């Protein structure tokens, strides 16, 4: 697979009036392969949108270089900057950015008109794009007459009509309701399979990213934390932040004493988990509510504090030490409130104890 989008040592700094110089993107190195669906995932202020805008060319980088389909488009060293209109990309924005003063046909035909393509070919290509996005019949409508989902499809049609090699999607589904988000996700994936373009998808919604991506990048405060497939990121997150960002997490504060692991608040009963090398006295064990096994005889002894039935799972709260753990199981695992039970943690991750300063800095960035 060819290297479609390459970022080398890309850095972007902003000078703001209120908060001084901020490094929004710090030394990003990544490669997106041809035909891949690659997501940028992270909380607001992490640098994902800025990176996308650097690739699109709306911002110029402070350092590093960006290559698109083998062509250098931004380089600090060589003082090169190719403007957005010459990068040959397709892009879809969060607020659709569909022009309200043009009918659907003219919206989608716009990129082709700019290229100077003749009328007959424009007709053909626009019609095809509209068919691929389920918009045939709507050529003469104005965007304001259509629903949010349809407007987003106009934006999609406009982006694919020039057959770009790389498509940039900036939180395209955030303004749609949940059911529509799922439908559009499938449609985007179908389009990608059909036309085999490379997709870079920016989102703050982790389930969306996991559902659509071949690989994803999690970033935080301007730094890339981890790049991998969704399953690996979910299963083996490299730190506490990634763990809690990608789905529900259960963190247990533990104390290691005499070669045994104890939950904080209960030094009577040890947890039967192997201790990795190189640990401190106080650590945090991370697992997920659905990765805690509830049995009747084997494991850490505790009891059911509260039980709630939810449509797809049963949720239990069980005390462990001075913490209350959330456990999620299918309905067929049946325990009653107050009943004694045993829990086992399946493949937990180990992390160092809490860092409060990071959280404050993260909040600060979200205000920008």
């Amino acid at each position: 697979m060819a290297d479609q989008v390459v970022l080398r040592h890309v850095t972007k700094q902003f000078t703001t009036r209120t908060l001084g110089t901020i490094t929004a993107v710090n030394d990003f190195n990544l490669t997106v392969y041809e035909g891949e669906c690659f997501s940028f995932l992270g909380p607001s202020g992490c640098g994902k949108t800025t990176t996308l805008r650097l690739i699109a060319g709306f911002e110029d980088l402070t350092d590093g270089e960006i290559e698109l389909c083998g062509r250098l488009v931004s380089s600090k060293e060589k003082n090169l900057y190719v403007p957005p209109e010459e990068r040959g990309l397709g892009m879809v924005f969060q607020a659709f950015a569909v022009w309200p003063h043009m009918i659907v046909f003219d919206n989608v035909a716009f990129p082709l008109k700019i290229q100077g393509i003749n009328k007959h070919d424009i007709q053909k290509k626009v019609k095809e794009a509209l068919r691929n996005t389920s918009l045939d019949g709507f050529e003469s409508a104005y965007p304001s007459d259509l629903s949010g989902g349809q407007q987003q499809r106009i934006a999609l049609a406009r982006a694919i009509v020039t057959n770009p090699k790389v498509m940039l999607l900036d939180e395209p589904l955030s303004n749609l309701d949940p059911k529509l988000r799922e439908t559009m996700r499938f449609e985007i994936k179908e389009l990608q399979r059909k036309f085999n373009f490379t997709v870079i998808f920016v989102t703050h919604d982790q389930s969306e990213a996991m559902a659509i991506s071949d690989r994803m990048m999690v970033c935080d405060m301007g730094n890339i934390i981890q790049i991998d497939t969704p399953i690996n990121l979910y299963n083996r997150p490299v730190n506490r932040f990634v763990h809690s960002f990608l789905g529900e997490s259960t963190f247990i504060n533990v104390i290691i004493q005499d070669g045994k692991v104890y939950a904080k608040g209960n030094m009577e009963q040890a947890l039967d988990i192997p201790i990795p090398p190189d640990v401190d006295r106080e650590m945090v064990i991370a697992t997920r509510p659905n990765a805690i096994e509830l049995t009747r005889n084997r494991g850490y002894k505790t009891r059911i504090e509260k039980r709630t039935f939810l449509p797809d799972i049963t949720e239990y709260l069980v005390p462990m030490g001075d913490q209350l753990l959330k456990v999620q199981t299918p309905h067929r695992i049946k325990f009653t409130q107050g009943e004694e039970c045993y829990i086992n943690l399946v493949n937990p991750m180990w992390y160092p104890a809490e860092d409060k300063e990071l959280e404050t800095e993260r909040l600060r960035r979200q205000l920008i």
Partner: protein
Amino acid sequence: MTLYRNRKRSDLAAIDGKKFNLDLLMTGISFILLFIFAVIPIAMIAYNAFFYKGQFSLKLFTSVMTNKHNLAAMWNTIKIAFWVTICGTLMGLFYAWLLGRSDIPCKGLMRALFHIPYMFPPFIGAMAWDILFSGRGGYLNTWLMKTFNLPRAPFNINSLGGIIFVEISYFFPFVFMQVVSALERMDPTLEESARIAGASQGTVIRKITLPLVTPAISAGALLILISSLAHFGVPSILGFSKNIYTLPTMIYALISRSSGSFEGIRQGAALSIMLIAVVGIALIIQKKVLSSGGYDIIKGKSMRPTLIKLRGAKYPLLIISTLTLVIIVLMPLVTIFLVAMVRAYGLPLIPKNFTFKNYSKIFTSKATLDSIKNSLFLSVTAGLLCMFLGVMIAYVVNRIKPKGKGILELLSVLPYSIPGTVLAVGVILTWSGSLGINLYNTIWIILVAYLARYLSFSMESASASLQQVHSSLEEAARACGASHTESLIDITLPLIRPGMIAGFFLIFLPAMRELTTSVLLYGPYTRTLGVQVYSLREAGMIPQASALASVAIIIITICNALITEITKSRKGV
């Protein structure tokens, strides 16, 4: 025990029996007041134009309409308005784009300069331009003739062109404000998506930005058009010496020259119909354009729009734009203050000819002090009354929502759409005894005219404030044990107070520097500040007129600064 009403189910008010009466009272008063202020004056004009001694007669109207001077005045009005609109729009557009979309430096300075015209009554500006470029030999004309050995004065401000020029300099900010606001609030991704699609910056402006701000441009342009059609101050200062009339100044001339005789007023009424017709057409166009709606282009997240880099053109544009602003904004200001200091009009404006005697003269003249007192009284009273009445009407329209609230809204906006001159004529006809009450030549008739004219300001700002006070805030108070009245006093009133105060100053400032209406309504002892400046000038006492004008400017500037401070520090809802 509560009264049980079957009719208004979903209305909070109907449950509390006592409240029913209060609401009805407020609604009733609102209708009556608006009828008195808005409907009757216009009706009186129509009546007096078309009826003579109780009988319908088109004689007056036809004689007025076929009079060649009147026709010339109407033609002038339209011509001036046309050119002012075109040029003002282009100028406003230029500055809006410059400050809203380009990377030109010194934006703060230019925006600050834009605030000055708002503090400057246009007729005082016209006075200043007349001092500089009067056809008979203004200061700058004389200086230019001497320096360049010219046989005649190069510029004559006492012309249609001069009137057009001065009006443009006061009205172009209307378009500027509308367009710059649209540009700043516009979703930048609308332009970014065009660039990704391959369009160059120029194409983006042509095909995307411009069409999307066209509604804002139209709105601003129509505002200029209507303001110019109805405008009195500038044509009166610059036009009379050369017998150039517009409809508003013609109406004034007819009435003032007939010394308030009934015949003169009748002719004024007939001419007013002509003016109403012209303005009415413009208003209909405005309504049509505004109702076809703008585009929903406002962005949600706060994003910075990409500024267009001017590169080489940056500094030349900077120089041109700042210079133009300096000329049209600062020059009149400086002139007024300099001439206020000169010992005798015509003497060169150099320090050795300066004196403070003009100031001492005006401050010891009873007429001047009275005029300041009158204006303060009128502005404060009109401000307060309009503030409370505006809140009441806004409450009726927004919360009580009776049948016919559309009429209420229309009636409250109507007086402002009528040219000030016409409103004055209507007020004269209504309150000069023909309906039983004679307020003519008293200060009260001016107050009545101000109330009619400015009520819509305070109603709109009170409406805006009320809409921000979500009804759940009042409902929460009710659930906490407060009665309806208590919730109004504890919750609603404090939250709209900042809006009310802003509404007060929204009226106080224009009323202080007003001329158009009071110039037709003043009596020997009831001159306003504007009228006094005007009168001093008419009497040829230019330095004193300038001195008083400078005082007016200072008062207005101070009040404006006060408001900005007050509204800035108060946090609203």
